[in-house]
C-alpha cells in the first residue's frame, strides 16, 4: 500500500508536485497517468526516498520508506531514467543490489531467467538496447519480492513479447496481494492491465477512480439518440446525474442513463425515436478530456 498525503515538491520556481494526496491499494494494478511534466516521475522518486518532499508525507506499506529496516522487502522500483552501471554485467548489477539485503545468487539467477536475460547476463549492461535495459530494470525491481512494486514506463522500448510479459507480470504480482503502481503513455496498454487509476495534471491530482468509472464518466460514453423531438425528449430525460447534449440537430448525446431507460421513457411520452446507440469512450479519450478539464480548471473556468 502506498499512502501519499499533501505531497509537494518544488525545483527552484517550478512546482513539480503540488499538494498531492492519493492511496494505492494492494491486490490490484493501479495505473498512474498524466501528461508529460505532470509530476509522475517526481512522485515515484519521492516514493523511493530519492527526492525529499518539501512538504507532505509518503508511506509505503504503512512505513516511512527511508527508515524501513528491510527496504527491498518493502519496495521495488523501476525508474524512468536508466539506473544501471554500463561497466558492470547484468548479473553484477543485480548482485550488487541483492547483496544489500542478503539475497542469494539463486534468486538473482531466478530474476535473470524471469526477465529473459539469461543469454546476456554476463555481458556489460552498457551495450544493452532500450528493451534489454528495461528488462534489467524490471528484474532489479523484482529482486527482493517486494510488497510494493512501482514501475515507471515499464513497456517503454519493449517488443510485443515483452509488453505481454509485463502485462502478465503485473497481474500476477497484484494477484499475490502486492501493491502495483505503474505509469505508461500507452493508454490501450493501461486499459488492459490496470483496474484502478490515479490521474495527475500539473502536479495535482485530477482523479482517482477505477478504470470503469473513469471511462463511464467521460463524454462519449453514453447513448446516442436520434429523434424528431430533440428538445422535448431532452427535457424529459433531464435529471440529476444525467447529462443531455443537443447540438441543434436531431441528435442527442445522453450520459448517466441506459438505452433501455431512454427507450422506455420515450415510449411512455409517445415521442418517436429513430436511433438508440450506446457509445463508449476509450481510455485515451477519457484521459484527453479529463486532462483538458484540468487545464481549464486551473485557468479559472467554472465547470
Amino acid at each position: 500500500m502506498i499512502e501519499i498525503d499533501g505531497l509537494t515538491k518544488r525545483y527552484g520556481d517550478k512546482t513539480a508536485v503540488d499538494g498531492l494526496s492519493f492511496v494505492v491499494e494492494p491486490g490490484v494494478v493501479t495505473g498512474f497517468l498524466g501528461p508529460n511534466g505532470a509530476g509522475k516521475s517526481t512522485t515515484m522518486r519521492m516514493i523511493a526516498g530519492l527526492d525529499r518532499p518539501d512538504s507532505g508525507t509518503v508511506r509505503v506499506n504503512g512505513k516511512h520508506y527511508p527508515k524501513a529496516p528491510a527496504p527491498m522487502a518493502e519496495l521495488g522500483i523501476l525508474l524512468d531514467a536508466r539506473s544501471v552501471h554500463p561497466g558492470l554485467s547484468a548479473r553484477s548489477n543485480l548482485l550488487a543490489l541483492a547483496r544489500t539485503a542478503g539475497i542469494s545468487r539463486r534468486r538473482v539467477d531466478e530474476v535473470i531467467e524471469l526477465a529473459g536475460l539469461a543469454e546476456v547476463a554476463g555481458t556489460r549492461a552498457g551495450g544493452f538496447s532500450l528493451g534489454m535495459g528495461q528488462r534489467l530494470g524490471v528484474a532489479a525491481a523484482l529482486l527482493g519480492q517486494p510488497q510494493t512494486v512501482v514501475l515507471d514506463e515499464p513497456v517503454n522500448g519493449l517488443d510485443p513479447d515483452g509488453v505481454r510479459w509485463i502485462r502478465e507480470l503485473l497481474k500476477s504480482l497484484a494477484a499475490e496481494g502486492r501493491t502495483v503502481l505503474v505509469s505508461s503513455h500507452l493508454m490501450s496498454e493501461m486499459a488492459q492491465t490496470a483496474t484502478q487509476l490515479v490521474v495527475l495534471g500539473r502536479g495535482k491530482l485530477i482523479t482517482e477512480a477505477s478504470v470503469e468509472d473513469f471511462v463511464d464518466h467521460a463524454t462519449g460514453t453514453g447513448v446516442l439518440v436520434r429523434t424528431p423531438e430533440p428538445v422535448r425528449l431532452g427535457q424529459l430525460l433531464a435529471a440529476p446525474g444525467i447529462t443531455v447534449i443537443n447540438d441543434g440537430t436531431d441528435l442527442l448525446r445522453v450520459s448517466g442513463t441506459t438505452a433501455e431507460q431512454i427507450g422506455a421513457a420515450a415510449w411512455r411520452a409517445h415521442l418517436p425515436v429513430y436511433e438508440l446507440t450506446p457509445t463508449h469512450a476509450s481510455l485515451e479519450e477519457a484521459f484527453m478530456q479529463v486532462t483538458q478539464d484540468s487545464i481549464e480548471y486551473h485557468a479559472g473556468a467554472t465547470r
Partner: protein
Amino acid sequence: MSAMTRPGLTPAQGAPAPAPMTPAPIAPVTVAGPVTQARVVRAEWTKLRALRSTRWCTLITVALIVGVGALVAGSGTVYRVSAGNSAAAGISGALLGVLIAQLVLGVVAVLAFSGEYGTGMIRATLAVVPARLPVLWAKLIVLAGLVLPVTMLCAFVDFFAATAIESARGGSAITLTDPGVLRTVVGSSLYLTVVVIIGLALGALLRKTAAGLSAFAAVFFVIPIVVGTLPHNITGFAPYLPSNAGGDLWGLSMTSAHALSPWTGFAVLCGYAVVLTAAAAWRLRRRDA
C-alpha cells in the same frame, strides 16, 4: 480519500474502491532481509571488483610504485647515508612512484561516486539503501580495504628491491631498523590510503567525474607545485596543504621548510579527509539523489 478533487467525476465520492477481482490479498512472501553495514560493504565490493577500471588502476599502481623505485635505485649516483642524507630520505626517493600512483588511485576513488552519479546507478543504489550513509561508509571501507594492503605490499616490495639494487651497486645498506625507514615505508601506504578517502569524498561532494578529477588533481598536483614556485614570505600555509602535510610522513613534501613533524603532518592530512568526508555525508543525506 474524501478530500480529493475529482472534477468531471461525480459518483463514488468517499466510497471505497471497488472490490478487486482477485481473491482477498494474503501477505506476500519476500526474500529480502534487513540492510546491514556488512551487507552494503559486500555489495560495494561486488561492484568494485567487477569493474575493469579497478583492475587496471591496481595493476598500474603496483607497476608505478615498484617500477619507479627500482628505476631510481638502479640509475644515477649511488645513495650513501651521511649526515645530510639520512637513510629515510634515501627510501623516500625510492618511493617516488607514490606521487604518480596517487593520481591513478585518485581516479578510482573519485569514480566510486561520480561514476554512479554519471551512469544513474546511484538511484538504484540509494533506492535499496535509502538510509544512504551506509553506502558512503561501505565505499570507504572497500576502497581503503583494497588500497591499504596493496600499497603496503608494494611499499615493502619496493623497499627490499631498491635496497638490494643499491647495495649491489655499492651504496649504503639501508635496513628497516634505521631511523625513520620503517615509518617512511609504512607511511607511504598510509598516505595513499588517506588520499583515496579524500578522492572518494570529492567524488561524492561534486558528483561530476570531470569536476571531481579536476579538484583532486588540483589539490594533489597543481596547487603544491604552484605554491612551491611562489616567494616564501607569502606561502607560510604551504606545509598545511594536504599533499605537503601528508608528505611529511613519508619524506616527500614539496615545501622547502618541513614545518610539521611526520605524525603531525599525517594528522593534518587525516583532518582534511575527516572534514571532506563529513561534508560528503551531509550532502548525501540532505540533497536529492
